[in-house]
């Protein structure tokens, strides 16, 4: 059953990445250059919408909070994010869109995937050493959210507010941000 669901959700996710233009590195590079923000707007709107619906649905009991999976916050998230950001700008691909880009016929995406497999392998080999440094030291307790969720496993930073209301406010803010942001902020000169 879980394999069947993986196929359905995976197909839908891959289809969506292709239809929003994320599998084309031109759109990612121009998003980061601020010359074409439509992809950024789509992602920000999608995040906001899913967050509002997720917290709303958990509050009325439609979504099981046990399905949440909050990743830990640690120093390496920031350093890794910086390394990621540089590669994202150079190549115009992230892990998901490189796979989708290759599926849309892009050879540079295939090359990116080979580099990615080696990068992941290099991390596997260096993990033993990285673990002995400060890089995996937790920030604010690790697996925390801003808004309190109904899942007891995760603490919240703003635990004195209603998590549902805070998350909906944040989600609406993402959607409004996407709506007011212009399609372009730069001529790329």
């Amino acid at each position: 059953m879980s394999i069947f669901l993986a196929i359905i959700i995976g197909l839908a996710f891959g289809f969506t990445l292709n239809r929003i233009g994320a599998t084309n590195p031109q759109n990612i590079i121009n998003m980061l250059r601020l010359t074409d923000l439509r992809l950024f707007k789509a992602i920000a709107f999608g995040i906001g919408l899913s967050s509002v619906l997720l917290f709303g649905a958990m509050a009325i009991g439609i979504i099981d909070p046990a399905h949440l999976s909050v990743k830990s916050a640690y120093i390496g998230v920031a350093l890794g994010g910086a390394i990621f950001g540089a590669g994202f700008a150079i190549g115009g691909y992230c892990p998901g869109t490189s796979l989708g880009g290759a599926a849309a016929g892009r050879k540079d995406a295939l090359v990116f995937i080979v580099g990615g497999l080696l990068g992941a392998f290099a991390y596997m080999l260096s993990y033993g050493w990285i673990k002995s440094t400060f890089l995996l030291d937790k920030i604010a307790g690790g697996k925390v959210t801003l808004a309190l969720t109904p899942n007891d496993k995760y603490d919240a930073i703003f635990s004195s507010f209603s998590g549902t209301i805070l998350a909906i406010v944040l989600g609406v803010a993402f959607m409004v941000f996407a709506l007011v942001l212009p399609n372009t902020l730069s001529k790329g000169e």
Partner: protein
Amino acid sequence: MNKRLPWLAGGALLGVVTLLAVMIVKPVGVSTQFVILDAIVWDLISPDTIVEMPENAKGYGSENAYLNNGGGKYAANAKNPLNYSFVFVIAMIAGAWLSSLFGGDKATGTRKEMPDVWRKRFGDSKTKRYIATFSAGFFVLFGARLAGGCTSGHMMSGLMQTSLSGYIFTVVAFAVGVPVAILLYRGAGKGELS
């Protein structure tokens, strides 16, 4: 030319799909599966990389500290690739391919090798583009594994759940990605809208 969705419709679809994923199973994520594929290949070349290890929660383990991590979950998933997360990524590739067959984004001509913005800035050399994307892939996946997730896991799934880690990753990735892209591709113009 391509049936790209208007950004608002595309964003709404993306929101619904990521919501359905967490509703039915769990939040989407991709970059871990690069590790799983690496581990599968490594174990094929050197068969004792992943071994049965009853003392690990998932029953498998490895001398490699990363694969042995978290009760041996990566080791176990590499031994059984027919698991949810790996199949999800394979299906994602198939979904993008199907979309490209039926009017979605599909590369043609020189765009199979490099996007126009790259060609305008750095010329037609395929070698140059491939060296750049190879390095970019290395950085992106090393960075994503150090961060514990990528665009899907940290940015979309993380921000949806209001995770602190998702905010840290997203802010830093854009804070570096935007100036690098602006400097690297300066003078390439607005580019064709596709």
